[in-house]
């Protein structure tokens, strides 16, 4: 029998208070059907010291609950502290998720997941990363399922994890937009990003919401929702669907996805059952069909 498609929880992008963080991962550990959880600060190195010990405890608790906990590296380390934190994660014997190619410098062939912020778009690049120890690939969010299928055809043994739920991470900058919004700069930011647990919505001057910012990161306003049935996902090599943490009931989100991936509910039912859980934002999935990411199609 074909193995069921796994559910994973991606790294948290947002600046949540430590108690919220601890409670969140406790629930994921105790109540969720998620198989694998990525922990670690990936967006802003300034936040890492605030959450580190909470995340260490969370990872232990997740492991005790039978989940696989995988540490993710910072997307764009800059200063000495961020670089040495990345280097020290890189020396872990356990698998890690790599979000900046610099993390490979100290990896020495030990296994890693290539995160969606690494620019791996084709089979030749993936093969080169496999030589470096890559054992799982989460493609950039702008890749279509057809393109992913082409890579899978050339590298059929590589498990692929597709971004399935959440605001899409669209861009990363050296500049902090929360700080800029408050007329500050990154170094004096006062952590205003904490005020927006799912990012701050950005609208056009006509009032059409379409983006959100979260510190150094720019996300989609809409919530990406992969409603491709598991039979079709398997055909393109998808071994896991990644849910990105938001301040909604992620235990319920995961349960709905589990039902869907086990073919117990139809795509439309998945969408409807999550209606209350999608931050009151529109759902989008254009990228999967090779369309602009902000579009929605019933496929």
């Amino acid at each position, binding site marked *: 029998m074909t193995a069921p498609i796994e559910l994973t929880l991606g790294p948290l992008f947002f600046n949540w208070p430590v108690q919220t963080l601890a409670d969140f991962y406790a629930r994921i550990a105790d109540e969720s059907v998620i198989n694998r959880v990525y922990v670690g600060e990936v967006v802003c190195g300034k936040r890492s010291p605030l959450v580190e010990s909470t995340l260490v405890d969370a990872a232990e608790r997740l492991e005790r609950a039978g989940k696989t906990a995988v540490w993710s590296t910072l997307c764009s380390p800059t200063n000495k502290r961020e670089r040495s934190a990345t280097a020290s994660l890189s020396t872990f014997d356990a698998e890690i998720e790599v979000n900046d190619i610099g993390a490979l410098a100290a990896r020495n062939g030990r296994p890693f997941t290539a995160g969606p912020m690494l620019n791996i778009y084709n089979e030749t690049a993936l093969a080169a990363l496999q030589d470096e120890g890559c054992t799982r690939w989460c493609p950039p969010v702008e890749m279509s399922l057809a393109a992913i299928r082409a890579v899978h055809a050339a590298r059929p043994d590589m498990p692929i994890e597709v971004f399935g739920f959440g605001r899409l991470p669209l861009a990363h900058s050296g500049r902090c937009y929360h700080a800029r919004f408050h007329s500050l700069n*990154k170094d004096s930011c006062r952590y205003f990003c904490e005020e927006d647990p799912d990012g701050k919505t950005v609208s056009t001057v006509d009032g059409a919401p379409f983006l959100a910012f979260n510190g150094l990161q720019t996300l989609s306003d809409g919530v990406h929702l992969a409603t491709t049935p598991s039979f079709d996902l398997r055909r393109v090599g998808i071994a896991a669907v990644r849910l990105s943490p938001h301040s909604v009931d992620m235990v319920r989100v995961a349960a709905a996805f589990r039902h869907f991936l086990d073919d117990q509910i139809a795509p439309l039912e998945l969408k409807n059952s999550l209606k209350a859980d999608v931050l009151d934002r529109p759902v989008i999935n254009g990228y999967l069909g090779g369309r602009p990411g902000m579009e929605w199609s019933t496929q």
Partner: protein
Amino acid sequence: MQPPPFELVAPAGTPATLKAAIRAGADTVYCGLRDETNARNFPGLNFSEAELRDAVEFAHAFGARVIVAINTFAAAGHTGPWKNAVRCAREAGADAIVAADIGVLDHAAERYPDLRLHLSVQAAAGTAEAVEFYARRFGVKRVVLPRILSIPEIGNLAAEVNVEIEAFAFGGLCVMTEGRCHLSSFVTGRSPNLSGVCSPAEAVSYTRDAEYKSARLSGLTIQRENHNKPIGYPTLCKGKFSAGGQTAHLFEDPVSLNTLDVLPELADAGVTALKIEGRQRGKAYVERVTREFRNAIDRLMAGDSNRVSQAAALDHMTEGHRSTTGAYRKTWR
């Protein structure tokens, strides 16, 4: 003390621009083939294989160098055009290729070990560790740094790596880390990484009503101004947006990067090549900017310590007639 010589790297979207740039004093020009393999895949731009051969011959006759940009990410299951572009560059006698895709670098390093490789800004290599990875694995000789590092950060990086440092000197300012931005494909379906375009012209429309003129991208209003103010091209990250009751250029104003006033600092930081952005620009623009930078570099190398601002010399070539030193000054962040 004599500052280290800067290599002036100028853009060439067409054979005519290439010649103009070299005559205006460029040490090196960069250009791309007429297909999806380079990050300025616009109609009417770029070089055929024969034009590339002629370009290299022309440049070499003037003692100048040619870098071929193969800096988009090869399409899954369809990497042929990128491999072909590497072959074309090699056979035309290009002095280097500049690439971002690990697949393209891997292919080039394996197939043509004597071909000089530069790491494109699209690879987003902003730390010594990342640069060293590309140097160790593919033998890259030069890195083009993302436009998000401050001058002290560039200095730290340059001191730690054994590759040449190329930095952007003038032209468009990417606000997001290059290679890590999907904003364009999110709205238009086409992106810098995959299609070589950002906020492409086919998605742009302009309208005017009694009060405002507006520029839209795929129907979203990205710029809107009163009739007495100019509106720029609707590049997504430089649009005017609303958040939390505030309407402003939330990501960046429509400005251009101009480093004429910080060239000594860039030299001290270890930058050895200065890149002018703009393969989509016309011949007159490239000629003018190249000549201005040639003069500034020559003055610097002659030990001219006159620190009167030179930036104004190129003000009329900048977006909205405004320029910035961007992330080179840390306060930008």
